[in-house]
């Protein structure tokens, strides 16, 4: 059960939305598709869902072209929030479940379970339009996987949710993973991606900048982020060998190193054989890698 994209390209008359995209998602893993707005994430999803045709390349699920498989094994949460405004919450879930070929009786248990889990018990008889935006999103989310899809696509599932609901959603995603669902999701909130994803693909203007495991991506940059607490001035720190950039934060100063290997000599100079309050060398966060990769100065890897 794998999803494979090979040389997938989507060209319109005057621009290319997706250019030669390649990645593979293994069964049961969570895969993140990351990029700025307009990077081609939604177009990619639509091509996987056969809502748009590819200009070139192939998309296969378990070796079968996606436009020949049974659509009911897929689940999709679109980026734009959309449910039937005048339909009751519970009816909405039954409707989408039945549309995916489930019987009402089969659906009841799952609907009860998820309604309770997402704290919608009091709203189940309410019309969707009377719900808050966050609650509508939860309803739509349940609707996207109520039929237990083998493969679930979530387009920006976290946007618009408060921290409590974000945690509910994260738990739900992990539970679905446990049950064997393969999940592809997009986000521009990197902390969520970092927490959930096994593998990811970085997109910039339709082209893939990186595709692989999160750790591999981080290793490419190495441990080049050094946080210290010291009396040295910014100018002094910048003068140190191997320091690319210095950023003063509230409680600490962050040095960006050209390479991991400079860290030891910097430690020796800063501590000078004495006690030092903070000296912490770490990988870059995904957020920083993303900004570095997408924000113009592309470091070739």
């Amino acid at each position: 059960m794998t999803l494979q994209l090979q040389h997938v390209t989507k060209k319109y008359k005057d621009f290319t939305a997706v250019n030669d995209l390649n990645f593979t998602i293994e069964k049961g893993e969570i895969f993140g598709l990351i990029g700025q707005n307009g990077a081609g994430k939604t177009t990619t999803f639509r091509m996987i869902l056969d809502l748009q045709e590819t200009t070139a390349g192939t998309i296969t699920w378990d070796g079968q072209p996606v436009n020949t498989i049974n659509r009911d094994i897929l689940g999709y949460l679109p980026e734009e929030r959309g449910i039937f405004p005048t339909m009751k919450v519970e009816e909405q879930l039954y409707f989408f479940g039945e549309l995916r070929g489930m019987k009402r009786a089969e659906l009841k248990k799952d609907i009860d379970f998820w309604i309770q889990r997402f704290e919608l018990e009091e709203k189940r008889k309410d019309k969707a339009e009377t719900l808050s935006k966050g609650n509508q999103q939860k309803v739509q989310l349940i609707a996207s996987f109520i039929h237990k899809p083998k493969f679930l696509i979530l387009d920006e599932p976290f946007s618009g949710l408060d921290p409590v609901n974000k945690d509910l959603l994260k738990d739900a995603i992990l539970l679905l993973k446990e049950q064997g669902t393969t999940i592809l999701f997009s986000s521009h909130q990197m902390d969520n991606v970092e927490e959930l994803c096994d593998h990811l693909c970085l997109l910039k203007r339709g082209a893939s900048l990186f595709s692989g495991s999160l750790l591999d991506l981080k290793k490419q940059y190495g441990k080049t982020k050094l946080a210290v607490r010291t009396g040295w001035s910014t100018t002094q720190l910048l003068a140190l060998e191997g320091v690319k950039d210095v950023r003063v934060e509230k409680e600490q100063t962050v040095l960006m190193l050209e390479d991991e290997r400079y860290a030891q000599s910097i430690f020796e100079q800063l501590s000078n054989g004495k006690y030092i309050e903070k000296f912490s060398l770490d990988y870059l966060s995904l957020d920083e890698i993303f900004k570095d990769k997408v924000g113009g100065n592309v470091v070739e890897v």
Partner: protein
Amino acid sequence: MSKFNLLMMQLYKSKFKSKSFILMTCLYVLLMSVAIFWSDIKALFTGEDEAQQIAIVNETSAELSGIFVSNGDIAFIQDEQDVAALEKRVEDGKLDAIVRVSDQEGQLHAEIATFVPLKLNDQTTLSSLLQYAGQHYAVQQLSLSPEQAAQIMSAQTIISTKNLNEASTGGKSEEEKQSGLWVSYGIGILIYFFISTFLSMITTEIASEKGSRAMEMLLASVKPATHFKAKIAGVLLLALTQMGIIVAAFLLYAKFVKDGVIWNAAATIIKELSISYVIYAVVFLLLTIILYLIVGALFGSLVSKVEEAGQVLMPAMMVTLIGFYVMLSGIGNPDTILIKVFSYIPFTSGMVMPMRIGATDIGGMVPMLSLGILIATIVVVYLFSLSFYKRSVLTYSTGGVIQKIKTVLKVTT
């Protein structure tokens, strides 16, 4: 249930329960009730009116009292002579008018004296009575025998038609054409109302699904073609339901109200029109609605949100209006070239062709040809819409209709 049925029934149920559908259906039944009980309703409003009191002062020697017969609206007081006393009574409001009939050079002269002008309706009645009295008077002056006079007064031309074309079975009589005209008028109005209602229903339905972005959720599980067909079928089913309710209400009225007078009248009209006319009318009605539903679905897929639905509905509504007015023009004269042309155009033929079939003498080929054009158009429009719908239904764009079509073509080819 298949996905098609599920989508269709979801649309059908939600619209069937909607206030607008219930109100519209009630309105149709109410209108029909008003038409059927019109005479009773009229009596209810006018029954309390007292008859106008009009005195006739006949100053000629001729016998005219047989002409001025009192009815519910006017009560005539005959053989009065004292004009001054009568005028006093008019001024007091006890009498509404005095009609003085006198001789003026062999012609009848009538003078109507009132204090408050007469109502239009009474004026018209009085004028025609006086006109008749004038002719009567003139005849009496010729000193003819009563039989001769009666013959002149009741003279009428007897008209019969003879068909010299042995190949055809002869044209329709005037009565047949008249009833054909009025029934076609009714059908035209029905088609017009049905199209307006259900065209905007399907367009706003699809536009609102697109606008609320439920469309993407739906299209992830059903193919656009299935969605398109289910929407058309759902609205069509609803239209049939509404027609069914109206027909059922009519049959109930016809059977149980006014001792079956309506039933008999309807049966006579259908007999006069022939069964093939009824079949044609129903087929044209259904096919025209289907054609407009396909177009409506396509239009709904073009707009980005429900607020923009009016923008695309306008052109289609204009076309129905044109058809409607062409049909109206046919009531005066159903044989014009205008009617002939529009009876072949697919979007208007449903309204115009039944009129030609019912009220003019045309062979069997003409309606068949028009029907053929309509069916061919439906097939072509359906196939085109189906392929275009797949591309337009997930494309969101701004601007006018032309701009939207351009955007669809640009981002999907």
